[in-house]
């Protein structure tokens, strides 16, 4: 088993492999997925490959970051123990996040959290508590050209900065922690061309809900999505927060990865939010490789999205791909409105919710819960005065956690309750009782619905 010095070893290997990397980056026939995997592909254990890999190939890759959270980490630790593996390949690439039920909601959860803390301290790997993993990774760790795997399906969020990022299982994370590598199948890619400017009240979340409604819950199963902007004006309406929302929510049509181009917005975001990994002496996170898909790459499908044709959408209940325009569902009464989650709990989301709630009151029959996605978002919401606005409006502002999104604490639903939510999923029983119903929408639609006590159209408020 290799130990900590391997990341510098690996860097040397990558340097020696430079001609191959240049060839790959200049190859116009390759998609993003084909390029990055051709770079990360390893020939035999620890040695670099100089082969070009294509969609459908199954290869072993080097992984730059492997994450598990508090509902998948304990199983990963258990698997390592069962295999009798007690040293990690490179602890600076192992991340544990306590986010799903933070702070612990009961003693069983508390004991699993304790197990993670003990593991992290024993192995000196990264441990984060009280920020949602994907948001933490975006704020501090993800960089273009990284290979990020995580025992959480929404790991695909990091495609927003041009990383290959995908969800895997707990025992597979254990294997990556042990060896730094895993097998992957190179996905076929669907290219999505975006044109048009959003109308008032329409957001990135509406765009991805509409797309999933059109292609279906398994419409991109095993596939990569590559998002492409038709020009600079179109590009400029997609902030990093919006890209993160789209890459995250892409999971709901089954994707392996969902990647945005690395452009001025990416570079500005990375400049303003420096990558850090204090655990590592030679900091592999600082090494960024911008990977741009080739002009003549082969796509299995192309899709056009015209933003100016979109309206606010609501998905559900029970199925993500049942998508209605907000008008069709107006007047459905709700018991709870939830703004939060890794899908839509960023500062941009909290901003629009505060703008709508300012000087207004949450309906008397409705609870409104606002949960920031990370400690950093939480602090920023306080600094900007949003928290005061929420409290004055009669909403609840919680600590950063997954919370209501998984129905375990801070906003679980009772029998037959109806919730409109900016979170990721509306599966049966996702947020609590099997008979509860969840509708998904943008934070703006959720906020106006909180005020009216029923599903409502944000265009009347913005």
């Amino acid at each position, binding site marked *: 088993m290799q130990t900590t010095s391997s990341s510098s070893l690996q860097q040397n290997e990558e340097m020696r492999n430079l001609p191959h990397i240049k060839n790959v980056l200049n190859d116009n026939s390759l998609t993003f997925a084909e390029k990055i995997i051709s770079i990360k592909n390893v020939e*035999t254990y620890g040695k670099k490959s100089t082969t070009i890999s294509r969609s459908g*190939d199954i290869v072993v890759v080097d992984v730059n970051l492997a994450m598990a959270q508090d509902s998948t980490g304990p*199983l990963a630790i258990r698997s390592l123990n069962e295999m009798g593996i007690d040293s990690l390949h490179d602890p600076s690439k192992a991340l544990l996040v306590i986010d799903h039920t933070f702070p612990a909601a009961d003693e069983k959860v508390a004991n699993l959290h304790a197990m993670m803390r003990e593991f992290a301290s024993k192995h000196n790997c990264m441990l984060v508590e009280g920020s949602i993993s994907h948001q933490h990774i975006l704020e501090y760790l993800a960089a273009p050209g990284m290979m990020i795997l995580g*025992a959480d399906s929404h790991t695909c969020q990091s495609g927003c900065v041009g990383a290959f990022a995908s969800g895997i299982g707990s*025992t597979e994370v254990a294997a990556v922690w042990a060896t730094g590598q*895993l097998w992957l199948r190179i996905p076929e890619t669907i290219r999505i061309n975006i044109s048009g400017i959003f109308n008032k009240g329409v957001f990135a979340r509406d765009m991805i809900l509409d797309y999933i409604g059109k292609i279906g819950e398994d419409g991109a199963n095993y596939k990569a999505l590559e998002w492409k902007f038709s020009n600079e004006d179109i590009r400029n309406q997609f902030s990093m927060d919006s890209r993160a929302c789209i890459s995250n929510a892409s999971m709901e049509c089954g994707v*392996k990865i969902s990647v945005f181009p690395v452009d001025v917005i990416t570079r500005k975001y990375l400049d303003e939010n420096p990558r850090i990994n204090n655990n590592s002496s030679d900091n592999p996170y600082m090494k960024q490789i911008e990977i741009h898909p080739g002009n003549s790459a082969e796509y299995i499908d192309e899709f056009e999205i015209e933003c100016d044709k979109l309206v606010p959408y609501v998905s559900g209940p029970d199925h993500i791909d049942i998508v209605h325009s907000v008008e069709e569902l107006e007047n459905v009464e709700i018991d709870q409105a939830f703004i939060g989650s890794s899908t839509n709990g960023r500062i941009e989301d909290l901003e629009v919710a505060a703008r709508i709630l300012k000087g207004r009151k949450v309906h008397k029959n409705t609870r409104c819960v606002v949960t920031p996605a990370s400690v950093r978002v939480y602090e920023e919401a306080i600094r900007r005065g949003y928290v005061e606005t929420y409290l004055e409006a009669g909403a609840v502002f919680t600590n950063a956690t997954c919370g209501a999104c*998984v129905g375990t604490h801070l906003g*679980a639903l009772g029998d037959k309750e109806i919730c409109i939510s900016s979170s990721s999923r509306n599966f*049966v029983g996702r947020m609590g009782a099997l008979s509860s119903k969840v509708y998904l929408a943008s934070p703006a639609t959720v906020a106006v619905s909180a005020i009216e006590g029923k599903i409502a159209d944000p265009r009347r408020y913005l």
Partner: protein
Amino acid sequence: MSEQPVIIPSISKGKAWVFGDNINTDIIIPFRFKSRTNDPYEMAKYAMYGFDPDFHKKISKGDIIIAGRNFGGGSSREQAPVALKYAGISAVVAESFARIFYRNAYTIGLPALEIPEIKGKINQGDELKIDITKFVVENTRTNETFRGREVPQFLRQMLLEGGLVEYYKKYKQFPWIQTQNSLGKS
């Protein structure tokens, strides 16, 4: 870790439990149950909870799940195939699987056979026989047999050994560590 690992034999027989499309991981095991335990036998008590909280009591060892498209969509929870396996399910046969569930099933040693033409060919309660060395399912009522979509050799090997942990315990290495550059095409 005192509990005995369950290893599915290469040939099993059992009753069919037939489901439709898009059976997601929140149906297979809701978050609030799986997030509170690390014990596979405890997870098994919530297998298919979203469909029927008593499912684990109604099935017999060896029973097989037959499903439509996109079985196991949603979260990455490995507890989903674990709960099914420890509840006594010996295989899941579906028209298609969501990608993380498919990976997880092989990793934890639960046979997952993708057979698009299974649609409408198996009724609730049919007696089935499944052979994972040959990758075939037989419906003993109709005598029809169906073959699962091929998976790379290393995954089949891992499955036959009982999953990744059991494979590693035996060979002290991971099954995808091979000398050739490519593990295959699919």
